[in-house]
């Protein structure tokens, strides 16, 4: 069980770092608190919706900024407004701040400025997505692993070899998803 504790510790540390780096704010914490036995993946589900929204809006803005005959800044403004709203609702602080900066360039109808902001926005979005996906994998893995070890332990007194195989497979999955594994003694 020591491995599970280490994994859970890792999860807590990782989660704290997201707050320290300003990637998520208190609203994210509020959403985490809403998770319960009936909806253990609520935050993950909201995040998925957010990622979809983000990608669609970033794409629409990229297309709008490419228009040779003239940029529709009203449409850009509308996209920024939507993205600012949903990033605020999920607690994606850096994405939200990127939207605020973007808005001033859109208001000024500054195409070059908007292009730079869009790049910055895409970067913040990618960062957020990677970090949250890692967080979710580690969270699910530690829960899954814990349950598996419990089940295997109950089924079989001599559970050591079985749980080692499970642990190894889970490690592989976590690393593949971009997470890291604490060292096991």
């Amino acid at each position, binding site marked *: 069980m020591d491995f599970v504790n280490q994994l859970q510790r890792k999860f807590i540390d990782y989660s704290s770092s997201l707050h320290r780096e300003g990637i998520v704010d208190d*609203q994210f914490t*509020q*959403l985490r*608190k*809403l998770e*319960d036995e009936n*909806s253990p993946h*609520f935050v993950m*589900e*909201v995040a998925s*919706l*957010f990622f*979809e*929204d983000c990608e669609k809006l970033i794409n629409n803005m990229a297309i709008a900024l490419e228009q040779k005959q003239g940029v529709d800044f009203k449409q850009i403004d*509308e996209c920024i*407004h*939507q993205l*600012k*709203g*949903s990033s*605020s*609702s*999920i*607690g994606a602080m850096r994405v939200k701040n990127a939207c605020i900066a973007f808005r001033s360039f859109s208001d000024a109808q500054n195409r070059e400025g908007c292009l730079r902001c869009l790049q910055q926005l895409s970067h913040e979005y990618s960062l957020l997505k990677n970090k949250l996906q890692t967080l979710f994998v580690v969270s699910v893995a530690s829960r899954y692993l814990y349950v598996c070890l419990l089940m295997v332990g109950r089924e079989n007194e001599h559970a050591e070899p079985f749980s080692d195989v499970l642990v190894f497979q889970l490690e592989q999955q976590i690393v593949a998803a971009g997470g890291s594994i604490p060292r096991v003694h």
Partner: protein
Amino acid sequence: MEVAGEVLASESQLHVLAVDDSHVDRKVIEKLLKISSCKVTTVESGARALQFLGLDEEKGSLGFNGLKVNLIMTDYSMPGMTGYELLKKIKRSSTFREIPVVIMSSENILTRIDSCLEEGAEEFLVKPVKLSDVKRVMNDCIMRGETEGNKRRRVDKRKFEDDNHASSSSSSSSSSIPSSPSSPLPSSPSTAATSSPLHSLKRAKLRDHN
């Protein structure tokens, strides 16, 4: 005989209609409301909200599923019909104007807040909406007696002689205003200050219906 009654029907649930064009926000508000023990219906626009309520003249009441709505929570900025326009339509409808409407907005603009409250909004919540906001709104609603299971009617302040009813020992009698079948306002009769939402309904006196 008049009895002071426990009007809070705790076993009944508020049915809330949440309106927001953002998928993320709909998901969040739905969760907040469910955690606060409400029945929730979410729609993506003011037009859909009106359809659901049965207010859309063009489409009739196709979307109406028979469940009374006790509270409407709507986003302010939506494409097409804004939350403000939806608020006005509801408050100008004789059937639905009693349903409390709460506006949610990411912009904390005083003139916007004022115009919403003037138009009859119960509250104006600044996004992102938190659980404490929702709980406060729920408490205010319960205080006003807007619960699904509460079928008692609002009392007219006028004294009313009811020939068919056996005279009670109490000098003041309460009466009910006949309400239409689609009335969204099942609330308790009370003898004083029915219009004040802050009055605790626990203090309300009920006519003995037994």
